[in-house]
């Protein structure tokens, strides 16, 4: 399938879905409207709401807050994950001692931590950052740990034969290997940073996309809820496209599936 045709069909799916939504909420069939607009709103109302937000400019403030929280969560979580991942991978005894606790904390649904973070850090951005960090940290940590552990023994032996010191091994072998693993999970970790921010906002805050959605829900403003969700989805797609761009720049040395040569 060529690109144009694919794009056409992708757009067609959206058009059909919106048309169906519109028809089911606006016209009566067999004497009744199948989807009550009070619970499902209508596509044009949702669109009007989004246009209004952007025209008035209020949405930028909330987007900015969510973006700040997600970015802070990503940066802090990544730095923590890299440091601890390296440390554990190079010190197997420490990794073994902490292993059950790492598993325990990671298996905890992060939502239950939100009230604690709100109590500790207040209703401002930091309680949301903390929630995002607990999500990002583990993804980065596991990948860096794996990346350091899985360096090919041949490459390692070669590096040593070339005369690398322990420090140089770190810089020229372990670090690039760990980084490549970390970047391969970049989409997931950035996505989770956003999830942490939005869920945190939803559970208690005074600003952000999660806050908008929660407020709209509180007054049965279904158009507001849908509008918030759509803005959030678009926001995530933009961030994901940016991550893809960064990935292509940083992992230029990695073969893609189509161009692998033997």
């Amino acid at each position, binding site marked *: 399938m060529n690109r144009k045709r694919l794009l056409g069909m992708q757009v067609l799916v959206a058009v059909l879905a919106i048309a169906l939504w519109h028809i089911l909420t606006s016209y009566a069939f067999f004497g009744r409207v199948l989807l009550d607009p009070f619970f499902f709103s209508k596509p044009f109302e949702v669109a009007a709401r989004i246009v209004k937000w952007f025209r008035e400019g209020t949405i930028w403030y909330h987007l900015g807050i969510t973006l700040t929280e997600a970015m802070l969560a990503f940066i802090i979580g990544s730095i923590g994950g890299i440091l601890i991942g390296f440390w554990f991978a190079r010190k197997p005894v420490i990794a073994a001692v902490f292993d059950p606790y790492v598993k325990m904390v990671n298996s905890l649904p992060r939502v239950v931590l939100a009230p604690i973070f709100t109590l500790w850090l207040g209703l401002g951005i930091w309680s949301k950052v903390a929630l995002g960090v607990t999500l990002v940290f583990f993804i980065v940590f596991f990948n860096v740990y794996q990346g350091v552990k899985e360096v090919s023994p041949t*490459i390692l*032996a*070669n590096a*040593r*034969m*070339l*005369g690398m*010191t322990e420090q140089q091994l770190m810089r*020229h072998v372990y670090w690039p290997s760990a980084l490549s693993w970390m970047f391969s999970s970049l989409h997931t970790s950035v996505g989770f940073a956003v999830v942490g921010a939005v869920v945190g906002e939803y559970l208690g805050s005074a600003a952000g996309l999660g806050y908008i959605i929660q407020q709209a829900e509180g007054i049965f403003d279904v158009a507001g809820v849908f509008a918030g969700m759509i803005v959030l989805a678009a926001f995530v797609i933009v961030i994901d496209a940016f991550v893809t761009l960064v990935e292509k720049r940083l992992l230029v*040395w990695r073969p893609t599936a189509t161009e692998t040569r033997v």
Partner: protein
Amino acid sequence: MDSGDIENGSGAAVSLAAVDVAFGLARGGVYRAVEQASLSVADGEFVSIVGPTGCGKSTLLNIAAGLRAPSSGSVSVFGAPLVSLNRRAGYLFQADAIFPWKTALENVAIGLDIAGAPASEARSRAETWLSRVGLSHFGDRYPHMLSGGQRKRVGLAQVLIRDPKILLMDEPFGPLDAQTRQIMGNLLLDLWQADKKAVLFVTHDLEEAISLSDRVVIMSAGPAARIIGDWKVLLPRPRDTAEIKLDPAFHDLYREIWAKLKDEVVKTYDMAGARA
């Protein structure tokens, strides 16, 4: 250097004396890989070790490199006992060992970089070496963009730029196709001819061993593999690895060594068959 010197290893580039290698097995017990191996490579001499699969040839190479310590016996390098990594040796591995996250040029320059050479000097010498191995226009390629043979060339340049006095090679051309192997063999001989280093070359291909070497050493089938033969190759140099195979003297030597090697290869296959 007379042969007595080579025997006791005092003047040799690398010498292994009565080396035993044993591995502890996971379920207890000990696997004796190599027994009583004594071998020395004189300075500037090209020696090949040939033996059936799994006879411990690579293990001997790792011992000469200092990557593994022998269970008993001793290793010396230019007369001095080897205690840790062999700093005078360069090692060309069988599997790809160049760094996938560095370009060809960076891969070649790395040995100088880590030794503290100025970046500009490392770069220009790396460029020289890349052209010596025939890759002058490939400096900015990453390994995955190169063919298997090209990656081997990068590996060779990466090792040789450090000017090691000893070159250890573990079936370096094993994964390559026949034509590329021949070309790589000639490249290796050209580079070696220009600046004679002691070479210890491990292979299971007897033709390759004879066409490249000054001496061919044969190992028996494992376990407890031993060195069971040592032939001088008196064919003229410089050689072309393809043409030398047409020389009648090559055939005579091949037949002589193969007669001995064949039994060991058959033994290995029989054991593999018994296991399967």
